[in-house]
């Protein structure tokens, strides 16, 4: 139950009510005071004061002064009239409750309206600020545009003027040109007559004849003639051979792409090298010795010099790095033939032929060689029928080779000879 504050005192005038409410020792803030147009409440828990006002007041303009243990209300009446009492006559509890609720609702609505109004004004202010800035910027832009326009106009005017000058010059030139052929013929005649005389009299004549508005033109025409005579002969034709900075790719060089290109090239080089991972003791080999192509070349050179064992060693190493190159087997077979290791020669030629599949025009040469070498090895081992088979295979691939034909014939005769013998 709240403690009612009842020792208030009031007086009134026509337009206002002055209410003073003692609140000894209590701290009062504006939040404790609640006022609508018909209801006034001061709530400082546990103390409570409320008044159902006799007539409506203007609650927005009414004031409350807090100080000295007293709250002094100045309530402005909505209607100018004298009040019989401060509060309405005692109504029952329900009515009072109803009035209280109504008061609260009123207050709420008022608050809402106020916030709405505030929002609206704020938006208006923002809009105004925006418009002002836009106007300023527009003005600036326009200023710049105007300056540019002015430049443009000035420039176009100059252009027109210059064009006019050009056209005038052209006109005069045309007039000159029409009179020119006649003058030229005359001049040439005069030149022929006075072959050894100096140029000055000629020039004088030309000037009077042509009556050019610009002396420059006549002299230029004249000097043009002179120039004709003085132009050097065409150069004697020659060729300069040049080299280009090498570039693998056909596309133009771009700095930003260089890194990608290097990467690609490096990867290609890697792929051409060893694929097998278990190639041991390759660390002490030099860079080039790990390249099968280089080793093949090395082997070829050794074969050419007659160092067959060295060549075999080179091919062996190359094969360790990459055992899918048929040429390596082929060449090693040739070495073995020279070393009279016929079985090994047969093995290697067979391996080469296996790898030289599919049988296309590109590897014809290689296949012929493989067959010939194998055939030779067979014959050396006196397996003449197998040898003949190989030679005939070689002839099927390349029927134009005389040596193979002759050798095949020899073998046939050998076979027939042995058959006859046995």
């Amino acid at each position: 139950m709240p403690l009612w504050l009842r020792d208030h005192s009031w007086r009134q005038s026509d337009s206002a009510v002055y209410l003073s409410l003692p609140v000894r020792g209590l701290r009062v803030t504006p939040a404790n005071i609640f006022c609508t147009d018909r209801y006034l409440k001061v709530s400082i828990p546990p103390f409570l004061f409320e008044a159902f006002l006799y007539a409506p007041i203007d609650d927005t303009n009414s004031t409350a002064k807090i100080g000295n243990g007293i709250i002094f209300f100045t309530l402005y009446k909505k209607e100018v009239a004298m009040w019989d009492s401060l509060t309405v006559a005692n109504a029952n509890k329900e009515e009072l409750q109803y009035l209280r609720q109504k008061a609260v609702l009123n207050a709420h609505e008022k608050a809402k309206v106020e916030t709405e109004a505030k929002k609206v004004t704020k938006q208006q202010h923002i809009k105004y600020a925006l418009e002002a800035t836009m106007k300023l910027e527009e003005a600036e832009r326009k200023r710049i545009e105007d300056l540019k326009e002015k430049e443009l106009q000035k420039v176009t005017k100059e252009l027109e003027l210059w064009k006019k000058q050009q056209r005038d010059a052209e006109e005069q030139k045309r007039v000159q040109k029409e009179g020119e052929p006649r003058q030229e013929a005359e001049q040439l005649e005069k030149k022929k007559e006075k072959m050894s005389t100096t140029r000055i009299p000629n020039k004088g004549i030309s000037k009077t004849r042509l009556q050019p508005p610009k002396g420059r033109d006549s002299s230029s025409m004249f000097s043009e003639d002179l120039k004709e005579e003085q132009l050097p002969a065409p150069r004697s034709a020659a060729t300069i051979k040049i080299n280009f900075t090498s570039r693998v790719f056909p596309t133009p060089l771009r700095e930003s792409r260089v890194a990608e290109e290097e990467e690609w090239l490096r990867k290609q080089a890697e792929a051409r090298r060893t694929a097998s991972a278990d190639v041991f003791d390759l660390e002490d080999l030099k860079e080039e010795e790990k390249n099968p192509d280089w080793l093949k070349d090395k082997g070829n050179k050794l074969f050419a010099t007659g160092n067959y064992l060295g060549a075999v060693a080179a091919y062996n190493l190359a094969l360790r790095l990459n055992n899918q190159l048929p040429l390596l087997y082929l060449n090693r077979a040739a070495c073995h033939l020279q070393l009279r290791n016929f079985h090994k020669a047969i093995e290697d030629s067979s391996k080469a032929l296996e790898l030289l599949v599919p049988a296309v025009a590109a590897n014809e040469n290689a296949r012929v060689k493989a067959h010939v070498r194998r055939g030779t090895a067979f014959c050396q081992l006196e397996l003449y029928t197998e040898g003949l088979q190989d030679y005939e295979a070689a002839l099927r691939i390349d029927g134009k080779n005389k040596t193979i034909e002759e050798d095949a014939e020899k073998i046939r005769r050998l076979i027939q000879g042995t058959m006859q013998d046995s």
Partner: protein
Amino acid sequence: MSAAGLERPQLVAPVQQSLNYTLFDCKWVPRSARILCLGSAARGTGVLQLYELRGGRLALLREIVKPKPIKCGTFGATSLQQRYLATGDFDGNLNIWNLEAPETPVYSVKGHKEIINSIDGVGGLGIGEGAPEIVTGSRDGTVKVWDPRQKDTPVANMEPVQGESKRDCWAVAFGNAYNQEERVVCAGYDNGDIKLFDLKAMSLRWETSIKNGVCSVEFDRKDISMNKLVATSLEGKFHVFDMRTQHPTKGFASVSEKVQKSTIWQVRHLPQNRDVFMTSGGAGSLHLWKYEYPAQRSKKDSEGAEMGVAGSVSLLQNVTLSTQPISSLDWSPDKKGLCVCGAFDQTVRVLIVTKLNKI
């Protein structure tokens, strides 16, 4: 924009013309207010159009159609009276046309096996001395110098040695034509090579390689002793070489600038001021530059050989005119600051650069 900004040269584009063909080259006709546009029509024929500046627009005077698309052209080797145009086309033909009677060429030769990328002429227009010559650089890797008085065979041929794989030649320029005998040709290739050929000695005088394909080379003046050479490349870079001092091993000194990420298609020096040049870029922009010489143009290195010192380049102004690359650029030799540029958006624009007198 500050007041200081307005004091710099402005690039104003008062006139532009939309075309219905791909424009590869545009040139001023000397001693006139006419421009020539060269290009390729959609059906694969070559087009030459002659326009005149009239009252703020370009008026078409003539249109000439040729069987093959035309890539480049020059007036450099013709006299002022004749004003014959030399063109290179997609088929490798070099033709010289009299624009008054363009049905048959005055000179014609199938100079190269592939497209002629670049052409230059010297000895004409009252500039320089010596025989009129035309140089063409082609995709077949050769650079050939032609004399219009000699039919069918070039007077100089710079070709790769036997067995060398060819690189495209993208740019050629004449220089050093200060008397009747001296002449050099500079050629730029797609692998970044720049080679300088001396035509008097018929030898390779200098070569270098920059890290990007070379799109355009130009000497600041053709008719003086070699002073500066600008070479532009892919990836937005260009190099300015000081050509007055050649070191025996290091060659010529240079300074380089990077503009934007896009290719710099052309460089052209202002005919009236050889230290001002304009570059055109792949992003449709034009940049105006000024070269400043160093305090001393040459110094001695540790062995006592003379070495050049490169100066510095400063940007005067830039403007973006188009979204497509501006592939061709030409200053008018008659009016300072007037230039024409052609872009791949099928538009030719006439520009004026103001305040060049104040530089």
